Each structure stands twice: as C-alpha cells, then as structure tokens.
C-alpha cells in the first residue's frame, strides 16, 4: 500500500503537509472547546458572574468551533483533491500498462481480473485514502492529546475511561475474529447461489426437458438455507455493535458522575467547585478519547481490504512487458512476404512446446492455409506473426525483416488481422469498420466497399440508420455471423499487405463463406493471406496448406497433394466430406 504512495509528486506531498498542519490545528481547537465549556460551567455555577463574561467565553467557544469547521472544510477539500488525483493517475498508469501488455501478461492475469483491478480495486484504495487519510492522522493525535489533557485530573476517572476503551476495543476485535472469516464464506455462498441460478438459466431447456425444475429448486434452496443461516449469524453479531457502544458511552458518563460525587464529597471546600467543573469537562474529553479509538478501529477494519487491492494493483504495475518494441520503421523493398524459419514456441514456465520447428514461406499474393485439430497450434502461428507472443526459437521475417525489429505500430500497418472471436466496439458501424489508425485516411467510399466485399452491405443497409447505426458494446445487438463479417470488413478497410484470418469464417454458413472468399480474392489480388480454418471447404483452393498435429508440421502442399500423401489431412477431410465429394472438388 505504502509503495503506491510513490505516485504522489511534490505538489501532492505539499498538500498532504498543509492538510496535516490543518488537522493538528483542528484537533487543537476541538480539544480547546471543553476548556471553554468548563469555563462557562464555572461561571454559571459561581454566584455573581457577569453575563458578559459568559457571552465572551461562549464567543470564544464558537470561534473555536467555527475555526475547526473551517479547517475541516479545507482539509476535506484538499484530501478529496488528493484522493481523486491519486486514483486518476493510478488508473491512467494501470491502463497504459495493460495496453502495452503482450498476450502472455494478459493471460497471466486474465482479462476480467485486469478489469476489476483497474476499476474496483482502485475505487477501494481511493475510498481508503479519502476516509482513512484524515482519520489516520486525526485519530492518534486526538487520542494522545486528549489522554494527556485528562490524565492529571483524577486517576479514578482515567481508569474508568481506560476500561471503557479497552472493552470497546475488545468488542471490535472479538467481532472481527468471529465474523470476518464468515464474511468470506458468505461471499463464496453467494457465488454458489449465482452459479446455480446461472446454471438453471443457461440450461433452461434441458432442465425443462428432464422435468427437473424441482431438482434445481431444491438444490438452490439448500444453498439458500446455508447462506441465510450464515448471514443471519453475521448480522446478529454485528448488530451488537451499536447498542453496546452506546451502552458503554452512557455507562462511562454515569461512572464519571458517580465517582465525581464521591470525589467532591471527600474534597476540601475550595476544591469542590473545581472538581465539579472538571467533572463536566472530563466527560466530554472522555467521549473524544473513545471516538478517537473507534476511528482507529475503523481504520484497522478498512485497511486489510485496501491493502489487498493495493497489492493487486502493484502486481500489475510491477509486471514487465515481455514483448519489447523495436525501432525499424522504414519502407521495405519487398512487400507481402512472410517467412517462418525453424520457429518453435513454448509458453514461459511450460515444459512442452506448442509449436516445434515450423518453417514456410509465403510470397506476395499467396494464400497460405493452416489446418489441424483443436490444440494443434494453429492460432499460435497467428499470435506469433502478430507478435502477441515472441518466438522461443527461430525467427519470423515479414518483408525480410524480423518482426522483433519492427516498431510495432509500423508492423501492424502491414497486417490486417481478423480474430477468431469477432470484436465489436460501442460506436457506429462506420466507427467499427474504420477502426484504428493505419496512417491513411479512410474514406466513406472505402468503408462502403469494404463492407460490400465482406458481405455485410446487405444487412447494414437494412439497419435503421445504415452505416451510422450504433453497435452495442460487444456487438450484442447483431448476430455472430454479422459481427464476423464486420470484423472482416474492418481488416479490408485497412488495406493491408497481408491478411491474417484466425478461423474467422466459422460463424458463417457455407454459402456466405464461399461468396465472401470469392469476392475477397477478387478485391485483394496482390495481398497475401494466411487463413487458419477448421473446414476443409474454406481452404481447399489455397496455394499452400500447412497441416499441424500437436505442434508439428506433418504436411505441406496443395489439397490434392495432401490427400495423397498426408494421413492427418485425409483423416480431417474424410470426417467432413465423403470420398466422392472430395474427389469431385
């Protein structure tokens, strides 16, 4: 947690310092108040006091209270500025860091975890700083100062106050010990209940087909009962807090008066009035002490949560990006060329290679297809070209230059990538197709043409606002096939040298798949294409098909060649099409 405070710059520290001084001032004023109270009490008690004197003391007291309010306002302004700046900066830092991450780091943390780290975790810390910072400074100062003020008044009073503080702290500790672990269990049970509900919802057809509604409901009620029991216990325990707190505070006042009565009775005549006014003052100091300790207890309750969040954020910030940017950004002599030279890849910390010794070369205008069963390493090849990962051994050359040497922005301008899972941004169709920055202006005409080639024109123009129709985040308002087509249009609009399709046709039916590829070929005669696919039909006409089996290349050639001499290819082919159909093709 503390290490994150490194993010404070000089100005921030200056503000913290000013806030600190103001808080000290405020505590001084707050503790001065009872003095005036006691003075007023004394005046009221003493026969023949001037009313002016009371007014004067009252004025001082109000001045103190007003000063305390004013400094509290300024402190509030300053701390809210600091905590908001802090979270703004930290959020920015985290966001930029994650943007520069390679896939390896993203996978390590998981996307959803990174999202919570950038959102919830930062909010947690911000809350702690906003509330805790003030309390953290104020509570100990108040506690120590107030204790000092009352210590010399009477040891009996101090003793009861000490006892009250002790009892309160004990209560907080006991509650924390009994309830805290259960809080975690409650969270788990809530997850379970969520799980069962989700399960029922996603499997609603199956549940009904098996007449298993009762079965699901009973399962739900089981966990529900458990949750209710656990939560009830927690809340009953926590409900103790406020009655006990008030009880202790009331009893403390009572005890102080009670003891006071005896003290006064035992004292000399002269001291009696003194002790009496002390008694009134003491009871208000005692409240301050108790409040201060309660504040400290609050911080101890809040701190662990903020600290966990801080740890999670630091984990991200301290992670080094494995893919380092290169410098090369000059035009190349050759274009549209990809070459794999003995490329092997394994995940860091893994023993087994995902890809072993892959070599191939594609020239300008070639279509290269990669096929193989799930887990054979098809997508890994794409991820390596895109430099989402770096190769473990060997090298990948694009236009004769190692991908590691390229400035990433420059490299990506050459590549038109269409991922397996189509990605849509919230924004218009136009925004989605023209997405990104390739160093060129994308005209409306180009966007329309790209949409047409990707077979998306028809449905886009049927939409209410055509190219200006809004796509919801994640593309939830269009179908999977439509998303896929827009995602392909996005690559076309980029006009890249090399197209990379990572199983991008799977959501399309055979017919659309076929027409789209035909149109694409017509439109991009000179472009090189790398196609990862599951369907034989998609790749049957490729110039070169690379067959992968558990990370190794087991065959390279055209469809006809491979049918003759590659077992794995034949196996895949026959599982999809019959013999005569394959031969007719």
């Amino acid at each position: 947690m503390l290490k994150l405070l490194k993010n404070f710059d000089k100005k921030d520290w200056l503000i913290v310092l000013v806030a600190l001084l103001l808080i000290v001032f405020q505590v001084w004023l707050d503790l001065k108040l009872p003095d005036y109270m006691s003075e007023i009490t004394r005046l009221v008690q003493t026969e023949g006091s001037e009313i002016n004197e009371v007014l004067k003391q009252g004025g001082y007291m109000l001045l103190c209270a007003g000063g305390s309010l004013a400094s509290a306002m300024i402190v509030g302004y300053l701390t809210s500025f600091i905590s908001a700046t802090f979270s703004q900066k930290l959020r920015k830092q985290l966001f930029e860091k994650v943007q520069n991450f390679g896939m390896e780091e993203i996978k390590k943390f998981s996307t959803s975890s990174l999202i919570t780290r950038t959102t919830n975790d930062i909010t947690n810390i911000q809350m702690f700083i906003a509330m805790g910072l003030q309390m953290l400074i104020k509570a100990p100062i108040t506690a120590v100062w107030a204790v000092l003020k009352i210590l010399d008044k009477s040891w009996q009073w101090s003793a009861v106050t000490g006892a009250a503080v002790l009892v309160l702290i004990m209560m907080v500790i006991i509650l924390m010990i009994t309830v805290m672990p259960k809080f975690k269990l409650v969270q788990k049970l809530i997850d379970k209940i969520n799980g069962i509900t989700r399960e029922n919802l996603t499997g609603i057809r199956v549940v009904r087909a098996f007449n298993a509604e009762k079965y699901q409901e009973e399962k739900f009620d089981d966990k529900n009962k458990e949750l209710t029991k656990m939560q009830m216990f927690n809340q009953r325990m926590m409900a103790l807090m406020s009655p006990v707190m008030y009880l202790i505070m009331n009893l403390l006042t009572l005890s102080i008066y009670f003891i006071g009565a005896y003290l006064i009775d035992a004292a000399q005549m002269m001291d009696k009035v003194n002790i009496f006014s002390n008694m009134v003052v003491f009871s208000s100091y005692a409240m301050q002490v108790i409040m201060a300790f309660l504040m400290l207890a609050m911080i101890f309750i809040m701190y662990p949560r903020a600290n966990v969040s801080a740890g999670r954020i630091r984990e991200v910030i301290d992670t080094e990006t494995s893919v380092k940017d290169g410098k090369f950004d000059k035009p190349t002599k050759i274009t549209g060329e990809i070459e794999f030279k003995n490329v092997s890849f394994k995940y860091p910390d893994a023993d087994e290679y995902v890809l072993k010794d892959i070599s191939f070369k594609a020239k300008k205008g070639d279509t290269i297809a990669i096929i193989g069963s799930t887990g054979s390493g098809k997508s890994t090849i794409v991820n390596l070209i895109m430099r989402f990962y770096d190769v473990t051994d060997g090298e990948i050359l694009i236009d004769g230059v190692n991908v590691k040497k390229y400035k990433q922005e420059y490299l990506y301008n050459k590549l038109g990538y269409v991922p397996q899972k189509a990605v849509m941004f919230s924004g218009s169709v136009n925004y989605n197709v023209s997405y990104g920055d390739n160093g060129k202006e994308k005209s409306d005409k180009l966007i329309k043409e790209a949409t047409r080639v990707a077979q998306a024109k028809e449905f886009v123009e049927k939409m209410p606002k055509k190219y200006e129709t809004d796509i919801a985040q994640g593309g939830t308002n269009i179908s999977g096939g439509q998303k896929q087509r827009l995602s392909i249009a996005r690559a076309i609009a980029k006009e890249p040298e090399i197209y990379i399709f990572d199983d991008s046709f799977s959501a399309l039916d055979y017919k659309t798949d076929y027409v789209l590829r035909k149109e694409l070929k017509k439109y991009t005669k000179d472009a090189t294409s790398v196609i990862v696919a599951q369907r034989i039909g998609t790749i049957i006409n490729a110039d070169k098909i690379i067959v992968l089996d558990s990370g190794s290349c087991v065959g390279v050639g055209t469809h006809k060649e491979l049918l003759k001499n590659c077992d794995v290819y034949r196996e895949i082919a026959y599982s999809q099409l019959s013999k005569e159909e394959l031969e007719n093709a």
Partner: protein
Amino acid sequence: MRNEKARPQRMGHGPNRGSSEKPKDFKNAIKSMIKYLNKYIVIIVIAFILAALSSVLSIIGPNKLSDLTDVITNGLLTGINFDKVISIGAFLLSIYLLSAAFSYIQNFIMVTVSNNFARDLRNKISVKINSLPLKYFDSHSYGDILSRVTNDVDTINFSMHQSLGTLVAATTLFIGSIIMMFVTNWILAITAIVASLIGFAFMFLILGKSQKYFDQRQVQLGNLNGHIEEIYSSHNVVKAYNGNKDASDEFDKLNTNVFTCDRMSQFLSGLMQPIMQFIGNFGYVAVCVVGAILTMNGQISFGVIVAFMIYVRLFTNPLSQIAQGMTSLQSTAAASERVFEFLEEKEMEDESSLVKHLDSSKVKGSIEFKHVKFGYNKDKIIIKDFNCKVNPGEKIAIVGPTGAGKTTMVNLLMKFYNINDGDILIDGVSVKDLTRENIHDLFIMVLQDTWLFNGTIRDNIRYNKDHVSDESIMEALKTVGVDHFVKSLPGVLNYEIADNESISAGQKQLLTIARGMIKDAPFLILDEATSSVDTRTEELVQKAMDKLTEGRTSFIIAHRLSTIKNADLILVMNEGNIIEQGNHEELMKKNGFYAELYNSQFQN
C-alpha cells in the same frame, strides 16, 4: 493521420449501479413490499415498538442525569446525599441496560425477519425462473435476472434491518427529544431548535448538491469502466489496428470526468460530519449562554443545562439518520420494484385441468403436424402452414444456414412455445391435451451447448431420475465410449464437475449423450453440431449419436452429410420458415435452396 470518425455518446453502462437509485413509483413499491411482508407484519411491529421504547428510554436518561447533577450541586456546601445519588445511579443503570437490550432485541428481530424474507424472495425467484415461458428469456439477459437474485435481494435485506429500525428509532428520538425539551424548559428548547435549524438548512443545501455529483459520478464511472472493459477485452484488435492512441484519448477524457465528479462529491459529502459537529457545538453554546442567563436569574437549576447539553446531541443526531434512512429506503424501493416486477411476470399457462396422459413406455412414436402456424410474435408468423407425418422409428433431418430458426422446431416439439394455430399429434393425441411435463417425458433432448452442472458425474448422468444403478450408468458411459475417461477420474462417478474443468468439450458432449441414454424415451431431438471438437473425438461423438438414434423417432439438426442423406425426411429451413421438405434425392432434383446449399460446400 488519426481517424476522426465520431464516436457516439456512451450511455451509462458498466457494473456500478447508483447508490442513489430512485424507484419508478415509490408508493407502489412500498405497497407491494408490505403485501409480500404480510406474514411478518406482527413481529415487525413488535420490533418497531421496541425501537421506539429504546429511544424513549435514552431520552429519559439525560433528565435523570440532570437530577444527579442537581443532587451533587446541592450537596456542594452541605454534603452530598448519597442515598439519592445511588438510587438515581441505579435507575440510570437500569434504563441504559434496558435501552441497550431493547435496541439489540429489535435488531435481532429485524435481522431474522429480513434474512428469512430474503430467503423467501430468493426461493421465489428460483421457482419463478422455472415457471416462466421461454419467451421471457428471449428478451431478458441472464445478468439482469442474476442481479435480481443477489444484488437486489441483498439491498432489500440490508436496508430492511439497518434502515427500517434506525428510521423508527431516530424519528422517535427526534420527536421525543423535542417534547422533552419543551417539557423541561421551553425557552431553552426554542433556543436549541433554532440554533440547530440554521445549521440543518445549510446542510441540506450541501446534501442536495453532493447528491447531484454522486449521481453524476456513478454515471461517469460506469462510462469509464465500460470503456476499460471494452478495451481490455479487445486487447488484440486494439493493438493490431493501432487503436491505442484513440483508446488512451477516450480514456483520458472519461477519466477526467470521473475525477471532477469524484472530487466534488467527496468534498461535499465529507462536509457533513464537520458541519454536524459544528451544529452540535453551536447548539451547545446557545443553550449554555441562554441557560446561564436563566440560571443567574434563578429561573432554572444548573442540572437543566446539563440535560440540555445532551438533548442538543440527541436532537441533532437523528436528523441525519433520518436523511440517510430515507435515501436507503429509496434504493430499497427501487430494488424491490425490480424483484417484484420479476415475480409478477406472467407465468406459463396452468395445465392442471389436462387429464390425458401418454405413458412413455407404451408410446409407439408417431408424430403428425397438421396446418401448424407459429410465430414468436403474433404479428410475425414464420411458420405458415406446415404439414407432415412421421412414422415410428423414422429419422427427420433439419437443415439450413445459421440463424435459419432450426431451434424453432425443438421449441414446438417440446411445447416450450405454444403453436398459434393447427395441431401437433403424438400417437394421435393433440399436444394441447397433454401437459408439458408429460411431453418432456417422451423426449430425449441432446443440444449443442453441452450443459453440465456443478455436481458429481453420477448426478449429471442420471439427472433427476432416482433408482438408477451405477452399473447402468457405467453401461451408458461405455456405449458412448467415455467410460475409460470417467474411470481415470479421481472418485470415478463421484467426481465433482466444476467450472474450468479438465473435461474437454468433446467429453462433455459424450456425457450429455450418456445422459440422454439413461433417460430412454421414444422420441429424440438431437443437435449434431460438434464445432469445437478435434477430429478424433468427433468420430466418437458421431458414433455415440448414431447409437442414440437407434429405435427412436428422431429429429436431428443435421450437420453431417451421412445423416442428411440417410434421413427419411429432410426439413429445409431458412429465415425461420420451412421452405422445402422431402428426402435427399427429391430435394436435389428440385434444384432449389437445398441443392444450392449442398453444392456450395464444394465450389471454390
């Protein structure tokens, strides 16, 4: 050059829901809440009485404390009357203890009631999910329903035991302390009230302002979180298209918006406490000064001032509690509105009047569609007039491009949806005369999305069927060829399936087929798609599927040519409608949509 295409204004989405949500109709929400709380009403009233009593006791306290002070002051010269001190002390002690006890019992009751109520609500939602027509889920997201089960019910639970009790106690305290102040001394009472009111006017002004910033902050934070979510989950595309700069710019803009609201809302809400303190002090001084004047004039005793010092505190505290309680009551109303809205959603038709029953073991297996008319919307009929007769043991293939509405057939056969017109006859009996439960008993259904739940393999296979021996489960697993895999798992049939499992997609599919086998019914609905499976497993799955169709009247959403070619009848679907029917040869001869679809696989 950067792409300057405009991005539309984002709406407030994202995971953060406003803390200050307002219900659409506060009165109505509370009314229906009371209706659902019916059986708890008596005990809630008892809790409220206790809360009020506890407050009353804490008001009597200061009065007695002032008596105590008087006893001490009176004794300053003559010696203190300790009998009196002790008796007042004892009285105060018992008042404090009673007040604490009442307050705790009240809390205890409310916690118990609210948790039981929450449990009821959750169970009701769980039951409700299963009695809603499938249509409901077409237009409502799972996330929405899930958040009602957890977040909304939790909000209701918490605010019920936290704010409801406090609200009653605070109101009692507020009114009670005003009365007591007037009873004790009306001049001081007016002083205290006027002094506090000035402060409170100021505070409510700030409260209103800060509420505005809080609302805004929630919206802005939602926007920012939405952006973060979008960019993180599209990381590869953002990178590949050099969208980083665009993303950063947008982020900066949203981040600054959040910063502004953050700062203001925090600052303003942080003012509450110091202002409260000041009001307390101000009231104190006012009471002291006026009290001093009155004392000197001999109108009141010093004890009255002491009592008022505490009254001022008692009187100022509940106001902010009431304000807080009202806000939380509002979000409760909003939450309960959502929960009750769901609970009052229209359910499936009641079928208790249907008496006809088909016994699964005696059904021969014929189905006839007679002039079936159906549409998901009444004004958009997609199946206009569908007729066909299926004899026992026949195989019907349903084909068509993605999104052609193949699941519509499943929905109609399983009576998940009711047909608009015409009839479907099973063994000559109209489905309209059969309960959904009865129809479900007649069908085995194996769908593409392999649905396994968290639980043992055994429970998953014999799903909702008692008295299934382990032997017959193993037998079924063997038939589909997944017995070796299951045997290799720790605990074998007792193995708990959980999320993120080592069980592959193909194995999951095999397990759901085994589940179908155990069910054993005369009809079969089968989705053949095996898209995420490697070639070897795919073969296994296909074999298992073929086994399952043996001896059953089968409806198959077909993806394999061998299935399609061997089918007794092929239903070709497009855009929701059945556009052609016949067997493979007939359809090829027709040279229509089917033939085109079939041929497009080989063209290049």
